């Protein structure tokens, strides 16, 4: 009896407390940010919820990027889609092709009459998520670009100037050899092999990754990563692998321990790795732009981004979309963006956020954190460097990285492997084209 009373009291109590919350329209935001980034994301949503009382953004952690995307797609098919979902960059082509499922951001902003100035955003970031007519389809959230981290202590020990890291690939080789002579086991390693050594290598050296402006101008695109310049780069890496000038450490960020432990003196990976490196290394480290190939280009072009953007899905009540639009405006505000950028190492998405961070003296206090922005804005993007858009790209990246591994392991030569990657990717591109021609 007593139990029943308590139960009734609790029910009544919760009814009272939840009454004001019920008045607010809930907006589901599915994301893939675990750990500290996830907590930061929650506090961003909290900030919006406290600012106004009409809408309540509810972030839901859905696991890895593929899990989040697959989950949202399954939910859409079951008519239970979240209003906002975070999708990684390789899923962009799939989302863009799903015209009936996606509510484009530019249209959302126009329909809800929210202030929206596409020019406020950094073109190098939004270009990736913009259609051929210049309309922004999704809101970039966490974007990063590859940079090169150097172990300054190892550089000093080898008699190299730690403030002048190698700028070109030949200089890389020389520096790596000097490091090895001074006792560092390996010269350099890399994270995200396809993204850094193929996709960004191409953009940085102004080489096409695929035809049709890297797939942005049409689905009938074909990869061009078996060009002589690509073959030479991968063949060089394979040669260097033998003497540990370069040492392969695996996909994604699996190579990180090689740099943390001091085994490799240089490490190419996403600018968002900054916080992790800072927390894990005992030596003085610096951040530098990626090296370029002087036999391909006189000076580096601009790098391209990776990361994820926020997509709005169709099928929710109209009231929610108004809230989504307001939330996106809040998310794009310089204060929120600058905070997120400084906390995570991801790029700011607006020029105002970059300016604010600079005025706050963040870059002076944390040297190297602006290398990423300088890279993506290095030059006005060309057709080769404004981004890429290939269907089935998650699988294609898998194929490219598999082929690279066979080259680095000495099982295949660079030309054969890259030819095979292009040919295997072509099958996936054609099947994507067929499935989405309607």
């Amino acid at each position, binding site marked *: 009896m007593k139990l029943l009373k308590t139960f009734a009291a609790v029910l009544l109590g919760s009814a009272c407390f939840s009454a004001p919350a019920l008045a607010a329209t809930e907006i589901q935001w599915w994301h893939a940010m675990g750990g500290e980034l996830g907590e930061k994301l929650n506090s961003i949503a909290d900030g919006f919820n406290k600012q106004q009382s009409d809408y309540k953004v509810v972030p839901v952690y859905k696991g890895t990027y*593929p*899990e989040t*995307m*697959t989950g949202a*797609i399954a939910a*859409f*098919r079951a008519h239970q889609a979240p209003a906002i979902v975070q999708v990684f960059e390789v899923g962009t082509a*799939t989302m863009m*092709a*799903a*015209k*009936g*499922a996606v509510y484009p951001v530019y249209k959302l902003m126009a329909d809800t009459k929210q202030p929206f100035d596409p020019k406020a955003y950094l073109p190098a970031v939004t270009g990736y998520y913009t259609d051929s007519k210049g309309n922004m389809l999704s809101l970039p959230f966490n974007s990063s670009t590859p940079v090169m981290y150097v172990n300054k202590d190892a550089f000093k020990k080898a008699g190299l100037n730690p403030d002048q890291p190698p700028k070109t690939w030949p200089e890389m080789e020389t520096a790596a050899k000097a490091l090895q002579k001074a006792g560092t086991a390996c010269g350099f390693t890399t994270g995200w092999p396809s993204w850094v050594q193929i996709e960004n290598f191409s953009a940085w050296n102004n080489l096409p990754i695929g035809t049709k402006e890297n797939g942005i101008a049409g689905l009938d695109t074909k990869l061009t990563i078996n060009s002589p310049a690509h073959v030479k780069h991968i063949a060089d890496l394979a040669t260097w*692998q033998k003497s540990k000038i370069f*040492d*392969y*450490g*695996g*996909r994604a960020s*699996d*190579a990180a*321990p*090689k740099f*943390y*432990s001091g*085994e490799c003196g240089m490490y190419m990976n996403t600018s968002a790795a900054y916080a992790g490196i800072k927390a894990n290394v005992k030596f003085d480290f610096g951040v530098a732009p990626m090296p370029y190939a002087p036999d391909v280009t006189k000076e580096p072009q601009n790098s391209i981004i990776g990361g994820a953007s926020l997509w709005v899905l169709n099928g929710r009540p109209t009231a929610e979309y108004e809230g989504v639009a307001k939330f996106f405006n809040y998310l794009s505000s310089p204060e929120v963006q600058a905070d997120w950028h400084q906390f995570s190492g991801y790029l700011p998405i607006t020029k105002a956020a970059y300016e604010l961070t600079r005025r706050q003296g963040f870059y002076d206090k944390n040297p190297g954190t602006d290398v990423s922005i300088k890279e993506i804005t290095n030059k006005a993007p060309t057709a080769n460097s404004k981004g890429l858009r290939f269907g*089935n790209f*998650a*699988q294609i990246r*898998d194929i490219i*990285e*598999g*082929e690279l*591994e*066979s080259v*680095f*392991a000495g*099982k295949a030569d660079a030309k054969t492997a890259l030819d095979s990657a292009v040919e295997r990717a072509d099958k996936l591109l054609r*099947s994507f084209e*067929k*499935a*989405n021609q*309607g």
Partner: protein
Amino acid sequence: MNASAVFKNRSLPYLLIAPQIAVTLAFFIWPAAMAVFQSLLREDPFGLATEFIGLANYVDVLEDPRYLDTVIRSCVLAVVVTAGAMATALVLATMADGVGRGSGVYKTLLIWPYAVAPALAGVLWFLIFNPSIGVVGRGLNRLGVVWNPALDGTQAFVLIVVAAAWKQISYNFVFFLAGLQTIPRAVIEAAAIDGAGPGRRFFTIVLPLLGPTTFFLLVVNLVYAFFETFAVIHATTRGGPNSATETLVFKVFNDGFVGLDLGGSAAQSVILMALVGGLTALQFHFLDRKGAR
């Protein structure tokens, strides 16, 4: 005894098995039928455009020489993991059976790894063998062995085998030990009196008497090695390097959930379903014969 005499009411038996049938229909037959249906379609992930393409997905899968490689790789993995886990467990169980004092502690310690989830077992072994931060990995490199499972497919495969087998040894150990303890001492002692050495006793008496246990474990281990190694692979190599550790189950997951190729992934799972069906039929066939004997 007349079997039909048990139930007087004709509909009662059906009523009693109805829940089981319902569960089977909802969680096996229905999804399996959906997989067969899906495997005949080409569809974008959101299901906005669907096209019936007959058996084209199957043709694509079976024409891919890499798929055949995956089939062979999965079989090799299953055989090696099963053999390794069972042989080691049998040796340990035979030794534990002979231990007098402190056998409880010994047995408990040997059973312990079974409590570790496959994914954790994988991560554990990969950390130990990490060439940069792992104890064994660094040691190997210092000894001059070029150890880099991120690049060397064979090394990665060996690690998967070790991680998967290590966990299963405990399970096999329990069953082998129980099996050993049911063998009457008198038989072994009689053989000893007749002059049979420990080796001879083991191979002519112990091993044949362990037959039913061994067969049961063989089935369980093969199924484990085929399906549950997924967690180990997913948590460590993700099928790499260059597909060296990609199994059939992992490929279904990777193509379907990461690649969003629903039709191709469904076709693969239907093929897998047929494979498992065949394996199960074979097992029942042998189990029945054993039972009849």
